[in-house]
C-alpha cells in the first residue's frame, strides 16, 4: 500500500490506470510540435531565399555540365542524405539526375571506419569517386560532425560544389571556408531540424529542376 501522501498521486507509484488524460496530453503535444515544425519550415525557407537561389544556381550549373551529386551524413542525417539522393535520381517528375548517398553501403563504411577511422568514411569515398564539377551535399544537425567537415575539405580540394545543411546555430559548417553554400535550420531540436532540412532539400530539388527546365527551353 502507498504510504504518506502517495495516495494523492497514485501515478507516482505506477498506480495510474486511466489512459484518458495521457492520451489527451499526447495529442495536444503532437499538435504543438507539428505547429512548431511547420512554422520553422516557413521561417527557414523565407529567410534562406537568396542563399537557396545561389545554391540551386550552382547545383543546376554543375548538373548541366555533367556533374554528379554525392550526399552524406550520420544517423538520421544519413537516411536524410539517402532520401535527398533518391529525390534527385528518381524524381517524381522532371529530369532524373545522377545522385547517390555515401552512407548506404555497410561494406564500404565498415572497411573505411575499421582501417582509416570514422572521420574519413566520406572523404575517402570522394577521393575514389568525385572530381571537379561534382556536388557534395553534407547534412549535420550540429553543423560540426567531423567526418562531414572532413569530406567538405576534400570536396573543395577536388573542385566540387559544396552544400551544407546544418541546424542549431550552424556549428562549424557556417564558418568553414570549405562550405560554399550553407543552409541553417535555426532550432535546437534535432527532430525539428531534420524535418525542416528535408523541406529545404525538397525546395532545392524543385529549384534545380526549374533551372534545368529553363536551360532546356
Amino acid at each position, binding site marked *: 500500500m502507498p504510504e504518506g501522501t502517495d495516495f494523492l498521486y497514485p501515478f507516482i507509484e505506477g498506480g495510474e*490506470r486511466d489512459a484518458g488524460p495521457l492520451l489527451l496530453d*499526447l495529442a495536444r503535444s503532437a499538435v504543438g510540435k507539428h505547429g512548431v515544425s511547420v512554422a520553422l519550415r516557413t521561417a527557414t525557407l523565407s529567410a534562406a531565399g537568396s542563399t537557396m537561389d545561389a545554391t540551386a544556381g550552382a547545383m543546376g550549373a554543375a548538373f548541366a555540365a555533367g556533374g554528379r551529386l554525392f550526399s552524406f551524413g550520420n544517423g538520421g542525417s544519413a*537516411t536524410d542524405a539517402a532520401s*535527398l539522393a533518391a529525390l534527385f535520381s528518381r524524381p517524381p517528375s522532371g529530369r532524373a539526375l545522377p545522385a547517390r548517398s555515401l552512407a548506404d553501403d555497410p561494406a564500404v563504411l565498415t572497411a573505411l571506419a575499421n582501417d582509416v577511422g570514422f572521420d574519413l568514411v566520406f572523404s575517402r569515398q570522394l577521393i575514389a569517386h568525385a572530381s571537379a564539377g561534382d556536388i557534395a551535399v553534407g547534412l549535420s544537425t550540429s553543423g560540426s560532425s567531423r567526418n562531414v567537415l572532413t569530406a567538405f575539405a576534400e570536396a573543395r580540394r577536388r573542385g566540387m560544389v559544396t552544400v551544407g545543411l546544418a541546424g542549431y546555430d550552424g556549428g562549424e559548417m557556417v564558418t568553414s571556408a570549405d562550405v560554399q553554400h550553407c543552409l541553417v535550420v535555426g532550432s535546437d531540436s534535432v527532430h525539428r531540424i531534420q524535418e525542416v532540412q528535408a*523541406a529545404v532539400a525538397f525546395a532545392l530539388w524543385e529549384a534545380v529542376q526549374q533551372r534545368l527546365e529553363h536551360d532546356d527551353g
Partner: protein
Amino acid sequence: MADAGAAEAGATFGAGPEDDLARAALALARRFAAGATLWCVAPGWPEHARHVAVEFVHPVIMGTRALPAVSVVDPDPVPALRSTVRSGDLLLAVSTADDRAVQSAMRRAGAWGVTTVWVGAGPRPQPGAADHVLWADGPAAVAAHDGSVVRIYHLLWELTHVCFEHPGLVSPEGAQAACEPDSGCVTCSDEGRLAEVLASGADTAEVRTAEGPATVDTMAVGAVRPGDLLLVHGGAAIAVLEEAGDGA
C-alpha cells in the same frame, strides 16, 4: 493535424490525426514495455525504415532509453519478417497504401501476433488495414521527401517516450488493468482467428497463430498452400482469405 480543435479544447478524445498518433504511441510503449522488438519496413523508401530504426535504437535525446528496433530493407520483407518476428512484436511500415509487400505483411500480422503501424501519404489504406494508420497530407511523392513523413515518425518516437513517464499505464500489469473501453478483446470472444499456413497435409494444416503453432482441420476450405492465410474457428479453417485490395 487540421482538426486539432477537439484535443486543444480538451474535449472528447477523437479521431483526429493527433489522436491517432497518441493511441499509436501508447500502444508502442506498452508493447516495448512487454519486450517487443519494432520491425521497420519501407520497400519503396528504405531510408525511412532505417531512420525509424535508428531513432529508437540510438535516441538523440539524452536520458531516453534505447529501444529494440530493426530495419528490414528487402524489397519484399515478408520472408525475413516471417522467420524472425515473434508474437507481441511491433511492425511499422512507411509506404503508400498500394505497396503490395506492405499489404501482405500487414495482412499476416494478425497470424504473427504483431501490432501494426502504417505511416504513409497519398490515398489511405482501407479501414482496418493496420492497427494504427498515421497519414501525412499531400501527394506521397512530396510528403516522402519534404519532411512530412519524417515528422510523423519523429512525433511517434517523442510521444512514445512520454508514455514511459507513466509506468502505471505502460507496464504489462497496468496496460491490462487500463484496458480502454473501445478495445475489444478478440482472444476471449467468439471470433475467428487468423492463421498462416506453414505446411499442409491431407485435410489438415500446420499453421501459425498469434497464440502459437497449431494444427487445424482444412476439410471445409479444401487444399491450402504454405503462406495462405486462413480464418480459423474451433480448430477448423472456415475460410481462405484472398489477397487484400481484391480483384488482385
